[in-house]
Structure formats: C-alpha cells, structure tokens
C-alpha cells in the first residue's frame, strides 16, 4: 500500500499580469480517492494541476500536502511522492524509451533500476520499442512513455493531465484500470480532464468556471 498523502487547497487563485486564470478554488483529496478537475478550455485545469504538484506558485491561497500523521510533507521529500503526466512536460527525444526511464530511475535513486524500467515499459506496452529513440515514436507511444515515467517510483500521489489523450482504445482501457488500481492501492489521484469517460473515474470533482 502507498504512504497515503492528503492534499488540501483553499481559496487558490492564479493570475498572469492582468489576466485572472481562476480564483477562489478550494477542495481536497485523500488517499484512495480520485479528484477530477473539470472546466472549459482556458479555465485553468492544467495550471491548477501544476500548482497543486508544486511546480507553479499560486498568486493567492493555501495548499497543504499532509502525510498520514497530518504533518506537512517537506518540499525536498514531496518530490519523491509524486508522479506527473501532462502535455506540457516532455521526455527526452534524443534518448530511447529505456534510457529515459533509466535516467529518471537513477536521479530518483531507485533500486533494481533495470528490472523496474523493463517492468514499467512492459506494463505500458512499450517493451518491444525499448531501444527506439523517442524521436521515432508516435504521440500515443510518447504518452505511454510519460505514463511509464510517472509509475516508475510507485508514487503516493498521481497528477494526471488528460492522461488518455492520443492513446488508442486498448491503451485507454488499460489506463482506466491502472488509475483505479492506483486508487485501490491507497494512492491519491488528481485528474484534469474534459473526457466524459475519464470524468466518471472521479470520486469527487472541482469544476472551474472559465
């Protein structure tokens, strides 16, 4: 079972210069739950996701990442607990699929790097293409590799921004099962999506107005 981390956010807002992306957004998600962030294009779903995972600072509001004892997770530790898949985050296209995963495994100081990388590639269906450079991948294959990267260290929290985009029907079915299994394994899942079937995965949701 995963560690179990709760995320609470209150009155979060973000603006870029004069443009207000969103304001006054609150919510929470705990271990074993799936929070979906929904809203029209430009409403700030991806921005909120990057704020919740700690990459971008909000203009206002408070975000807390709490461990099972209720203590705040320190920033240096937080990195070890989260896995992210987002359209705005790329993997290295000069490297092969296996080299990409090896790199992320080594900077995360994982053990049994080779076995773990091969296992993840196998799960996302990229094992036969492990020695192909990412430059030669289709967008769907790149998406599968990004998912493999996010599952590599078995994180307690998953941030998924349109994770099913560019996946074929069998990939989408596998993704649905993987996200549900992650929640069943006590992981916390935050999902930004406009896909109707993905919205149904959520145990609760936050709708952004736009």
């Amino acid at each position, binding site marked *: 079972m995963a560690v179990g981390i709760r995320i609470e956010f209150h009155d979060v807002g973000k603006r870029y210069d004069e443009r207000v992306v969103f304001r006054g957004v609150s919510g929470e998600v705990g271990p074993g739950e799936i929070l979906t962030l929904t809203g029209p294009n430009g409403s700030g779903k991806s921005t909120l996701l990057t704020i919740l995972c700690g990459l971008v600072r909000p203009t206002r509001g408070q975000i807390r990442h709490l461990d099972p004892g209720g203590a705040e997770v320190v920033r240096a530790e937080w990195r070890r607990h989260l896995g992210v898949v*987002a359209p705005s985050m790329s993997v*290295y296209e*000069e*490297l092969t699929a296996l080299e990409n995963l090896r790199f*992320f495994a080594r900077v995360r*100081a994982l053990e049994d790097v080779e076995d773990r990388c091969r296992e993840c590639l196998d799960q996302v269906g990229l094992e036969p293409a492990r020695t192909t450079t990412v430059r030669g991948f289709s967008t769907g294959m790149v998406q599968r590799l990004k998912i493999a990267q996010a599952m590599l260290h078995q994180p307690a929290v998953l941030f998924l921004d349109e994770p099913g985009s560019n996946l074929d029907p069998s990939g989408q079915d596998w993704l649905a099962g993987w996200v549900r299994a992650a929640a069943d394994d006590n992981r916390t899942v935050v999902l930004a999506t406009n896909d109707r079937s993905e919205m149904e995965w959520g145990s609760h949701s936050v709708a952004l107005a736009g």
Partner: protein
Amino acid sequence: MWRWLGEAAAVAGKELRAEFRTRVALNSLGLFALTTLVAVAYSVGPFRIAAEDRPFLLSVLLWIVLLFAALAGLDRSFVKEEESHTAPLLRLSASPLVVWAGKLAYNLVLLYLLMVLLVPLFALLMGFEVVLVGWFVLLLTVGGYALAVTATIVAAIISRAMTRGALYSVLSLPLLLPLVIFLIQGTAAVSDGSVDTVQSSVRAVVSLGGVMTVVSAFVFPVVWND
C-alpha cells in the same frame, strides 16, 4: 554523498549521451573555435608578432578563442531543457543541486574536450612556446573549471529569461572578465618562464572558481525552482 554523486552522474551521463547523438553544442563550440583560430592564424600567424610581445599577445588570443567558443556552446544544456519542455519533469525528479552538479560536469567535459583539441592546434599554428608545461596544464585545468562553473550558473539564469542570446553574453562577460585577466597573465607567464606570476595567477583563478562554486550552490536552487 555517494547517492548524490550517482544522481549527478546520471544527469551528466544523460547530457553527454544526448549531445553525442545530436552534437549541437560540440559543433557550436568546435566550429566557432576552429574558425576563429584559422582566422587568427591566417591574419597574424606565428611570425608577425615581435618575439618579446609573443607570450602576452598569444595568451590573449588563446583565451579570447576559448572564452568565446565557450560562450557559443555552454548555455545549450539549460536552454534546451526549457525549449523542449523537459525541464518540468527534471525539476520534479531531481534535487536542484544534483541538476546543477550534473550540468556543470557536462560543461566541464565539453570544455576540456575543446581545450585538448584546440590548445595543441593553437600552439602549432601560432608557434606558442610553453616553458612551464606542468603549470600550463594546471592553469588550463583550474581555468577550465572556473570558466565552466561561471558559464553554468549564467546559463541557468538566462534559460528562464525571454531574451536568451543577448543576455548570456551580457551577464557572462562581467563575471568572466576578472577570470580571463588572471588566465592571460598566467598563460603569458608559463610561456616566458615566470613561476611566481603563474603561481599567483593559479591562486587567483582557484579563488574565483571557489567563489563562483559557492555562489552557484546557493543561487541555483532559487533560479531553478522559481
């Protein structure tokens, strides 16, 4: 400590692997250095400088070629992370100091590779004689480190800015100017055999490199995470 070094080695290894596949920085550094060297050798050559002026003037030319070649290629590692949108995942996966150390190691390898190729060629084409060979190697080693550590932190800063190209030179030159002055002094001294001057130049270069290392270690996490 070993774990930290292993993570930094992973970053440096990733950079080198990607670089040897694309050769973007190697081509920028190498072609700039070679073109400048050939232009200097053709216009000045080994015999158009008076014998007493040669140690100093050839040292100036050597470090001008090395400095500007470095400025042409050492910013790539950070700029490319931002341009190809790989920086966010790197930020979420590795600690800032690991990234800094890995990128510094990669820039060091590039710069030392450039020196190994360029310096003998420069000595051959320009007739640059080195009396104190051991001191010269030491000066190039510590000078290369100081140059790389300064170039790395400036590259990290400008990779977050919008107007990258111009900003790199604008920020780098004031930081690198004192370093280059000491390197020129030391290089002239290894050519005319003045051990005292080389020693003081090496000490100054080591001090500047040390200061830039400490400053970078404090500044980089703020620049990288902000």
